[in-house]
């Protein structure tokens, strides 16, 4: 199945993968803040972060830019909702915070662009 975000298939033109960032607590190990800090300082709970990496694929430059423009419109809002991966696993209340395209568009048999997307479940 194809992945979706807020029910939209924004990245279905090409392959992509998901990885979950560390979960748990944000903490400062001993001696991080000052020389007298001798115990671990637990700051707060980490926000859930998921990184998506993949490649947009299109038949032409114009078609690829149309895909990028659509994503740009969503990420600048920024869009918030459910993220569903290929296997149907769902993460609720995720915000698409950033779309980072690679430093070049690849023009071979097809026109493609590697990218990274950052989703975070914002605490506030």
């Amino acid at each position, binding site marked *: 199945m194809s992945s979706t975000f807020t029910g939209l298939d924004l990245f279905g033109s*090409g*392959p*992509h*993968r*998901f990885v979950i960032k560390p979960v748990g607590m944000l903490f400062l190990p001993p001696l991080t803040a000052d020389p007298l800090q001798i115990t671990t300082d637990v700051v707060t709970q980490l926000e859930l972060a998921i990184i998506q990496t*993949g*490649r947009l*694929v299109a038949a032409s430059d114009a078609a690829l830019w149309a895909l990028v423009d659509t994503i740009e419109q969503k990420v600048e809002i920024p869009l918030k909702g459910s993220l569903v*991966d*290929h*296997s149907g696993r769902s993460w609720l209340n995720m915000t698409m915070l950033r779309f980072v395209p690679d430093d070049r568009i*690849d*023009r*071979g*048999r*097809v026109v*493609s662009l*590697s990218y990274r997307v950052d989703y975070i479940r914002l605490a506030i």
Partner: protein
Amino acid sequence: MLWISPEQVTLLGVDLDTVEFVAVDRKAQRLVTEWSDIGRHAVFADVPEERVTIRIRRRLDTSIGAGFANAITPGALGAFSLRASHTTAGSANVTVSASVVVLAIEHDLSRTRGASQTITCLAVSTDGALDPFTAQEKTP
């Protein structure tokens, strides 16, 4: 592509004689591959950057002096052209051309094969999209 004993080979304005063969090799300079979260096999592959090299090998019957070395040197940019005809009746004559940058001029000497010279060039495109190598066939 490979031409054995072509009729005429010109590189950077120099006519090269006793050419044994000219080979045009195409390789992926950059390969992009992608895998998915579904399984272990690649789901996408493409070659957005390609390297077209031309190898000219010729037999040397005489010593080569500084004049040739000054004309064809690594980094030099110029035109390459080749004309080859087939001996089979009705087969086409081929004219190929490319803009090239010389990469290497190498020599070899062996007791059985004698002296030979191999010139390797990189074919360059005018804009990156056009194929740097053109071949025209003319049927007699």
